[in-house]
């Protein structure tokens, strides 16, 4: 298979010509692969895709999201997950299988306005997403500052193997919980640290596609030079499945992809 150069594309641009497998944000038109979003093209042995730079969050099964309880019916809570579908958290997920609407008070466990970290247990084209909070590190978030960024910036905010988010957390002494839907909760004891972290997150959002971003964030947060590793000199938009929760990185991103991206980057 011939090599495809990484390039900037807008909808309608031909990403590659020839026998490539279309992955995400591309479609096949005759012999060519055409982009459907604004973004950066990426090709590997699995196929060709475009890493988008704009767009709202579209749910996928197993995504970790942060949502706000809107209301509850007798059997489930409805949760706003910053998407075009409102999600449902079944009461049985919280109370167990012997849940009875007559005996259990749902409002006591999760009231409207509460913020939760949840995993999308089920979602397809025909039904609204079903959430679960049964896994480790999921559940209600007691305190913190809530902010919203574009969901396409989440991988950049996490950085390579969590480098960006760890930098911000360490420098500001905060805990940052990121949902793949672009909702972020920043918590910590120090108000100043929280503000600094929020500032840094906004800068990452605005300047996500520029190079040397981790370095600039480190300078902003006054991280000593010795701590600066030269790990972020490339544009890094990997659409990884990484999510950061309470200092733990749950990731199925493979390092190989990242390395290839660096060696191919022409910047």
């Amino acid at each position, binding site marked *: 298979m011939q090599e495809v150069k990484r390039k900037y594309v807008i*909808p309608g641009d031909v990403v590659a010509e020839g026998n490539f497998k279309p992955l995400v944000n591309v479609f096949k038109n005759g012999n060519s692969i055409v982009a*459907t*979003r604004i973004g*950066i093209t990426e090709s590997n042995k699995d196929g060709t895709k475009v890493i988008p730079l704009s*767009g709202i969050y579209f749910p996928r099964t197993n995504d970790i999201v942060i949502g706000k309880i809107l209301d509850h019916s007798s059997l489930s809570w409805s949760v706003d997950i910053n998407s075009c*579908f409102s999600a449902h958290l079944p009461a049985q997920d919280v109370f167990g299988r012997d849940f009875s609407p007559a005996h259990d008070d749902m409002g006591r466990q999760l009231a409207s306005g509460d913020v939760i970290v949840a995993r999308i247990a089920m979602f397809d084209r025909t039904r609204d997403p079903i959430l679960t909070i049964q896994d480790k590190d999921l559940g209600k978030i007691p305190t913190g500052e809530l902010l919203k960024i574009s969901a396409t910036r989440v991988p950049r905010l996490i950085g390579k193997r969590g480098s960006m988010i760890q930098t911000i957390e360490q420098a500001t002494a905060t805990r940052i919980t990121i949902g793949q839907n672009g909702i972020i909760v920043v918590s910590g004891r120090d108000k100043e640290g929280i503000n600094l972290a929020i500032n840094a997150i906004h800068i990452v959002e605005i300047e996500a596609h520029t190079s040397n971003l981790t370095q600039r964030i480190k300078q902003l947060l006054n991280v000593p030079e010795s701590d600066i590793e030269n790990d972020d000199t490339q544009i890094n938009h990997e659409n990884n499945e990484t999510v950061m929760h309470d200092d733990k990185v749950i990731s199925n991103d493979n390092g190989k992809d990242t390395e290839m991206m660096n060696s191919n980057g022409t*910047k």
Partner: protein
Amino acid sequence: MVQSRSLINESGKRSDGRIIDELREVRIKVGIIRNADGSALIEFGKNKIIAAVYGPREVHPKHMAQSDRCVIRCRYHMSPFSTDTRKSPAPSRRETEISKVIREALEPALILEDYPRAAIDVFIEVLQADGGSRCAGITAASVALADAGINMRDMVSACAAGKVDDKIVIDINDTEDKEGKADMPVAYMPNLKKITLLQLDGELSPTEFNTCLDEAIRGCLKVYEIQRSSLMEKYFGNEKGLKE
């Protein structure tokens, strides 16, 4: 359409000083409305138009939702101050019709099946009108849709051509629209080479029609280049590093 006075002078210049195959100056600024998911401001000669895109988002009222695809709703509206004499802000017959044709011009470019049970709202607000506002509106809406990150098969570029003084000219302005012999707005998907809007007001012979269509498509391709550079500037600035 009855043409009363000459709109092209002896040296081949039109009423606003352009030659017959010259576009008005087009400028597009992307992402001007923070609250919208995607937006664009287009200045097409004296036209000033804002397009804002919201969505995909939940459909209200729910019964409008389609189980297999996204619905697209489009509103073309002229501000009361956009014309010489005050225009009533209530939607007119003309605006309702233009909203419909713009929606139908954008629809083929969108991959609506990717967002079932959702809706995309496109708002086109004309701040200043000078002929060709539907074409400018489509152009701006297409940029706003790309800015909103909605899956698209291609961009949509639009430009009008027409007959003035028995000559085929591109990008008809307000005077030429009112006093010329024909006006033909065309919306075009430049990469897929498909026409998504074709209207004609006036009379053209079959040969003139073909020339007019070719000229309009040539105009669309020029507009496409401007759409492209405005999006590139917003997202990648001066960084051309990765560009081939």
